[in-house]
């Protein structure tokens, strides 16, 4: 036999684990797409066994009795999404004078000159729910180059680390700039806190507070918010279609428009940067974001629900049954696989809030960005995780 003194390579264990995962998935899909009789191990209680036999082999009925999967591949992704949309409609929402608080962790991998950088951010966001009065949101962000989970190093090589640190240092310099910039415009005072907006840097902050870092605002000074890639005022949002197909078509058109603009920008990049990228995001990538993003803004519930339904028109979207987020919360999972990346979103089982969204590389060779082609399989190139959500009656004091 071979020399057992040699420690076995990790890749054997990794492949074994991937094999188990793939087998479990394949089994589950097989089970859902066929009409199997009830498995003996599931019908321990005789009463159930008789009831099931009486129901016959109708797959949907079986799934209702045993809760096998979520019936997704049988009833289709459209119905699964409709289920989510319905629950958005019936879930409680903050009133116009309340704030929605969310604690979010976001990560993103980016191409920087010479390599890859990974950023992790922890956001506390407080969003005022009345979009007709105050057009602002506060984001208090703690930036960090957090180590990604799963043992994937923050930087693939020492050179990447050096590059990343330089990039981050320049980002920090910008933060200082935001803090000390002059020419702040004063807006309305709320609860004796002065909200200020610096038009030239697009930064919002709360004066008189120690600590929170300043970040570029997602809201703009003139009261618009971003939805489906467009900057819309509350009045325009009210006119945005609620028909799912119309939403899909409009976002698709916007995605194409955005893509064309990105291509023009791409052509203007210095040759060195262009060489490092193979291609930027495609139209579908933009569209996926528009259809699935968490806007962190007071969007009308009926519009959010309709947008979920619109996702059904996205080619390649699949209902993937149940999933869990990092905190073990269960949700309905939907995925899209394209060019070596699996994009995944998870809606809370009860409230249908977006719990998590993530892009995982399963085939690095298909990556559009050259530097990403050497990342390990399983690398998460971007993620959004909702940590906590609350409805508040007023802004908490800081410091």
């Amino acid at each position, binding site marked *: 036999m071979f020399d057992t003194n040699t420690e076995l390579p990790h890749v054997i264990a990794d492949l074994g684990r991937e094999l188990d995962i793939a087998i479990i998935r394949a*089994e589950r899909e097989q089970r859902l797409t066929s009409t199997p009789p009830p498995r003996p191990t599931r019908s321990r209680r005789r009463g159930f066994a008789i009831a099931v036999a009486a129901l016959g082999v109708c797959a949907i009925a079986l799934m209702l009795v045993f809760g096998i999967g979520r019936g997704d591949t049988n009833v289709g992704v459209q119905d699964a999404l409709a289920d989510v949309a319905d629950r958005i409609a019936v879930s409680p929402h903050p009133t116009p004078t309340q704030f929605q608080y969310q604690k979010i962790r976001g990560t993103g991998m980016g191409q920087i000159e010479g390599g890859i950088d990974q950023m992790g951010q922890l956001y506390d966001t407080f969003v005022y729910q009345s979009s007709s009065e105050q057009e602002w949101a506060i984001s208090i962000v703690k930036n960090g180059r957090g180590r990604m989970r799963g043992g994937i190093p923050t930087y693939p090589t020492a050179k990447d680390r050096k590059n990343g640190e330089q990039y981050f240092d320049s980002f920090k310099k910008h933060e200082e700039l935001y803090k000390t910039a002059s020419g702040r415009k004063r807006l309305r005072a709320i609860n004796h806190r002065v909200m200020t907006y610096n038009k030239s840097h697009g930064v919002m902050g709360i004066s008189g507070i120690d600590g929170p870092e300043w970040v570029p605002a997602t809201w703009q000074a003139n009261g618009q918010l971003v939805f489906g890639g467009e900057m819309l005022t509350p009045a325009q949002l009210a006119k945005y279609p609620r028909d799912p197909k119309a939403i899909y078509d409009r976002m698709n058109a916007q995605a194409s428009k955005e893509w064309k603009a990105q291509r023009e920008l791409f052509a203007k990049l210095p040759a060195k940067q262009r060489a490092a990228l193979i291609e930027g995001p495609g139209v579908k990538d933009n569209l996926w974001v528009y259809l699935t993003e968490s806007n962190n803004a007071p969007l009308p519930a009926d519009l959010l629900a309709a947008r979920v339904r619109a996702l059904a028109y996205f080619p390649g979207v699949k209902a993937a049954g149940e999933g869990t987020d990092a905190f073990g919360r269960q949700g309905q999972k939907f995925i899209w696989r394209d060019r070596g990346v699996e994009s995944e979103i998870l809606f809370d089982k009860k409230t249908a809030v977006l719990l998590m969204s993530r892009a995982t590389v399963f085939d690095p060779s298909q990556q559009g960005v050259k530097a990403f082609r050497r990342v390990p399989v399983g690398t998460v190139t971007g993620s959004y995780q909702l940590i906590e959500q609350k409805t508040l009656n007023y802004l908490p004091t800081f410091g």
Partner: protein
Amino acid sequence: MTHEDISALYSEHSPLLLRYLMRRTFDAQAAVELMAETFATAYEKRAACNGPEVGRAWVFGIANNMLLDFYRSGKTERRAVDRIGLAVPEVHDDDLERIEDLAGTAELRGAVATALRDLSDKHRTALELRVVQERSYEEVAGAMGVSEDVARARVSRALKKLKGVVEDAVPVEVIENV
């Protein structure tokens, strides 16, 4: 066979199979990919196997077929891997070292180099033309000024001599039973 049987087969035989594949490709990443495609295929076709007792022979048989395709095309097809959605890990530097140790390929390379030197000129030339330069037997014959039959015989003899050098952990009967 059930899917648990496949998982069990993997746990038990993957180190051996990896060594086997590594010795026949000298490429750790290719060996891992071949292993993935082998087990993905084994999973899909598990009904065709009579039971876990003949599992090892059966999996090696699949692996041998994968190897043949690999030799012919120079890459691993990922048909079964893609169908069941298996993510194939990438081999990193430290794993590469361990795989090479496991397969003893460093020593093997040395042994093969020695064996090559010991071949007579005509056998070594025939081998190089056929295996390294990937010429057809017709071309080998033409280059050496002999008939095609003689060319084939020389390549065959050279390979037999090398085969003796490749000391294998896999018992011969496992390969011959598939």
